[in-house]
């Protein structure tokens, strides 16, 4: 069973992220996905979130208890929901919108400038799709095919292509990041005989993309 929370501020398409993920696993990945959303005056403009429970069997308890994946697209939401993340959980965040605080040791952290990527594509409204793609690449709890199949009906028809492109942008970035992480892990496992040069490969990933 996977418990996921998408969070950000009202208007970013956070609920949509939950809907797309829930639909993808339920209709195209042959699993069970239950989506619930925060609902109430506190959700408008400030921290807002949607929760998805994914399971091989029927989902009974409809809410997440200790999410293993937290996706944060705003500082407020990050600060509000970070404490509930499992000790060995995964934090996925927008690098331009969230300033990380000191993290618990075992939490894995993956960042993507999703809003900036979306702006580069022409409109920040696609930021949630970049984030969804990145989340799909990193978390591997849902297939990219299922996510893309889930989009029609949940995004406006005339923007379907752009949404798919935004999704793929985030997805590729996530896959690259994972590959890089794997390489580094292998390097650590087999230390080279000579210590590497201090300046070697220090370029931050966001610069590398531009």
């Amino acid at each position, binding site marked *: 069973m996977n418990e996921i929370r998408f969070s950000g501020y009202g208007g970013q398409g956070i609920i949509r992220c*939950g809907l797309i993920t*829930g639909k993808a696993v339920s209709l195209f990945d042959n699993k069970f996905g239950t989506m619930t959303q925060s609902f109430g005056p506190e959700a408008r403009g400030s921290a807002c979130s949607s929760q998805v429970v994914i399971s091989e069997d029927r989902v009974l308890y409809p809410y997440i208890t200790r999410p293993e994946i937290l996706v944060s697209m705003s500082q407020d939401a990050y600060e509000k929901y970070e404490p509930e993340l499992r000790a060995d959980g995964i934090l996925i965040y927008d690098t331009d919108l969230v300033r990380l605080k000191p993290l618990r040791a075992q939490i894995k952290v993956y960042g993507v400038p999703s809003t900036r990527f979306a702006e580069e594509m022409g409109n920040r409204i696609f930021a949630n799709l970049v984030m969804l793609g990145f989340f799909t690449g990193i978390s591997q709890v849902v297939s990219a095919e299922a996510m893309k199949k889930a989009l029609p009906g949940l995004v406006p028809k005339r923007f379907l292509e752009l949404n798919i492109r935004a999704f793929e942008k985030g997805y590729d970035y996530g896959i690259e990041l994972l590959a890089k992480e794997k390489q580094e892990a292998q390097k650590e496992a087999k230390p080279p005989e000579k210590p590497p040069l201090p300046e070697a490969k220090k370029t931050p990933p966001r610069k590398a993309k531009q």
Partner: protein
Amino acid sequence: MKPAVRTGSHYITGDVACAEGAIAAGCRFFGAYPITPATEVAEHMAERLPDVGGTFIQMEDEIAAIASILGASWTGVKTMTATSGPGFSLMMENLGLGVCTETPCVIVNVQRTGPSTGLPTQTGQGDMMQARWGSHGDYELIAIAPSSPQDCFYHTILAFNLSEKYRVPVLVMADEIVGHMSEKVVIPDAKEITLVSRPKPKGRKDRFRLYEPGPNGVAPMPAIGEGYNVHVTGLTHDERGYPSMTVEAQEQMMARLKGKIRNNLDDIIHTEEYLMEDADIVIVSYGISVRTGLTAVDEARKLGYKAGLFRLITVWPFPEGRIKALAKKVKAFVVPELNLGQIRREVERCAFGRAPAIGVPHCGGWVHDPDDILKTIKEAAR
């Protein structure tokens, strides 16, 4: 015109599934006043009904909303409204009118937390006794409680079928979580859905008596304008439908109103049982609490407790017979519900002291922590 049955797999909320179920069941009139968390039912009906030749009216309030569906039902269409707590309260008087005039209709109550305005955006199951006794007078009706969006689809169809068959308002007692959560809902082919329509009168129009019961105690129902003599009143009436201020007319009318339900309990009462064969601790549950209840039963079984779950799909009329029979062989009933013990008391009444009915009280606003139910199971087993 678009197809009424959207065959296929969908990822939708309980509210939307409820609206799709209604349209698949043949509902072609919907009158309502928006209220959280039932607004999405109205929104979806407003979008869908024109597609299938139906009518949607947003009424000025809930009193008018239920009045509109009673009136529309007498023109021969299947009708529904949807509301929540405060709106449900406003509907109570005309709910009685629907019962008294034996008007088929479906009323969806997506429950939130009360009393009064309460927690408008949060869940509750506090209207269960109001559903049974909210209108004045002595009467019978039917109430059904769905636990998931998929249930919302099928149970709304069930509500229409029972409502048409027995000429009685049927309540769909959902709640905010079931109404707002999104899950997969499979809608079958239209031909796989069994639909029931109200019995229609046959024979000579001049000899027609509006409330003369048929074989199952239910009188055939003409539509206004078909040429039958139709006099519909909330006053005590005789079999012709005319007001009659006598004890005899009251007795005859009440016998019919009660009898058509009480004499057909086996057909009306739908329940489900989970791991009940050897269970000595039985959770009795309905609506969203079934899901937390099942989680607790699975946990309890892992720990070696013989726990099972008895699910009320039909909450009213209450399955008295089954509870009575179970009370003779089980150690205890555990009743988790999002109120402080409405159905618990009903279980206690039917158990008649043979087994305790232990509540897992919750004031609403959220669902039970399954651990709290588990704790009660452990205590009950002691």
